[in-house]
């Protein structure tokens, strides 16, 4: 599946945007512009971008506590994302949700989730809706290696298998759940092995190779659109930073060599290199992309900063629909 220059440029832009967004979010959290907890997606960009690159806006995804990348890849507006992190009224949740609860139903982003595994059942619901609509829509569920230890993982894959739901389960195996290596969570290194018993294909893919992720997802999505059911895709990847931060940046607990080895497999450098080799993009064009991202982010920050804080008088608004 050859990619044209526009597609490659689009994916590269999305990946750089995700990285810069979270790098800036870390700074802004330290600066006290953002509150609560921030879970950076840096290092995993190829997964969100590769997966979402084959989805339509009408396809629905659920995300996790580490959700900024999924939002951006699915087409959310970083200005409203940043405003949400700033706790302002122009944020996606009018400041009520914050980092762990960003959602944009208009682009099929059914929400980040502060509960490990909490998005799996909701994604199955979105898949059921697609099945009932019968228009070839699919649902995609992002979750971590740690989430695969929760019972909701089993129940979700099981019902998806029984009902042949049009859903693709994307396990982002970044080797750690908070400070615990995957060995604390699972008897083996892989999650994909669970798929067979649920009657669905389970594949392992290099989560730092956006093209590989895209290709594997395309196959699983096509399968789902044809009504042939669900798939589990395990993307091996790594987060470059700490699990989560509040006011201060936590000390690193993982082996330095391990981190270095993974950083050497930078998914962004990899796609940039591919684009250059194939002559799809020039170095200047890539520089221009980076510059564009910088200004987009500054613009988002300015937008967020200009947005007012919610009025306490609106505390009870949005509780119940009429």
């Amino acid at each position, binding site marked *: 599946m050859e990619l044209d220059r526009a597609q490659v440029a689009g994916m590269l832009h999305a990946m750089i945007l995700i990285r810069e967004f979270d790098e800036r979010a870390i700074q802004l959290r330290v600066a006290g512009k953002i509150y609560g907890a921030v879970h950076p997606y840096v290092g995993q960009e190829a997964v969100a971008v590769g997966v979402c690159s084959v989805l339509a806006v009408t396809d*629905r995804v*659920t995300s996790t506590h580490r959700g900024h990348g999924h939002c951006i890849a699915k087409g959310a507006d970083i200005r409203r994302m940043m405003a949400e992190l700033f706790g302002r009224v122009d*944020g*996606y*949740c*009018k*400041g*009520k*949700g914050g980092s762990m*609860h960003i*959602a*944009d*139903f*208009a682009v099929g982003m*059914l*929400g980040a*989730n*502060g*509960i490990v595994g*909490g998005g*799996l*059942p*909701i*994604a*199955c*619901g*979105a*898949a*059921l*809706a*697609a099945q*009932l*609509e019968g228009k070839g829509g699919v*649902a995609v569920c992002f979750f971590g290696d740690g989430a695969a230890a929760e*019972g*909701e993982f089993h*129940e*979700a894959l*099981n*019902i998806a298998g*029984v*009902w042949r739901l049009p859903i693709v389960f994307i396990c982002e195996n970044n080797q750690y759940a908070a400070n615990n290596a995957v060995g604390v969570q699972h008897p083996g290194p892989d999650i994909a092995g669970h798929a067979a018993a649920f009657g669905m294909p389970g594949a392992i893919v290099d989560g730092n190779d956006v093209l590989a992720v895209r290709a594997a997802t395309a196959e699983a999505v096509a399968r789902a659109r044809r009504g042939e059911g669900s798939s589990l895709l395990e993307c091996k990847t790594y987060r470059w930073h700490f699990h989560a931060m509040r006011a201060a940046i936590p000390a690193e607990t993982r082996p330095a060599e391990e981190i270095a080895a993974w950083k050497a497999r930078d998914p962004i450098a990899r796609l940039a290199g591919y684009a250059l080799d194939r002559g799809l993009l020039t170095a200047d064009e890539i520089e221009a992309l980076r510059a564009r991202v910088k200004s987009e982010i500054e613009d988002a920050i300015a937008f967020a900063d200009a947005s007012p804080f919610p009025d306490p008088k609106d505390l009870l*608004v*949005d*509780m*119940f*629909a*009429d």
Partner: protein
Amino acid sequence: MREITFQQALDEAVAEEMRRDARVITMGTDFTGDPVKEFGPARARFTPISEAVLTGMGLGVAGSGFRPIVNWRMVTFSFVAMDQIVNQASKIRYMFGGQADFPVTYRCSTGGGIGLAAQHSQSPYSMWMHLAGLKIVLPATPADAKGLLKSAIRDNNPVVSFECSRLNTSTGPVPDGDHLVPIGVAEVKRVGRDVTVVGLAYYVREALAVAEELAGEGISVEVIDPRTLVPMDVATIRASVRKTGRLVVVDEAPATCSAAAEIAALIAEDPTTFRALRAPVQRVCAAPVPVPYSPPLEGAALPSRGDIKAAIYRAIEDTGRSGSRRRAAVSAGASAGRRRRPDRADAAAE
């Protein structure tokens, strides 16, 4: 008007709403009635025994344009799905700034009294009431069961329909046609002067029976059925207590942090009602134990008519009325004593 059972009324509500709106679907490990026959396996879905995923699917499919009914069967089984209820369903709309609606109806049976022991005899309404973000209905008659469930299915928010097991086979008149009962409106089941008795589900009938009995003794009892627990129709309950000056709440859940506790607090914190209150509030609730299996123990654990009567006498006693009252109160004393026995904890503390 037809005379049908509580269960038939609930089945009619689901069938009528599924006919009315093709986006309504129903899911559960089993069904009463035969929705699969009329609506097919796509809209009436037998599910695996996976309440957690089922509960979250309700939200996902509702947030994607459908109107699911998720049936947990017994409230007992909903607890394996509690994360999806507490952390997702009750918060999802507000947390997301109101950008989407989640019109999902969760149904389950509640209550004891039929020998099913601790796990299968629960009435934990208050655990849901405490979660800001869910509407909750608790019908006591076939008409309300049908009308409230239909309103729940049409509501654009997560609504929990608690359906009392002991009422399943009870019958009552149900209006013909599209019978709806609004969520959030209590009903004064019997007008009275001396004491207000708020009963829940099965205990509405029991309260009415006791009221009838006491009318013979010249005690005029007003009986109120909240029908909806969230939003609670406090205005109706307060108005009644402002009139009678006395409140008895009957609930088959243990008293601690129960719906009865909330109703007592709603009365005690309202200045006008507080000033009108002439006697201590009486909670007639289950003993603070898991419901035991053996009939004599189960009978002792759950509220009885004798307990309700004794509480009414106490309410009147404490505001000093005629000696006949006092004797009556004493005659019911033992049972009243048991009902009011604090758990060992309190006992230790008192």
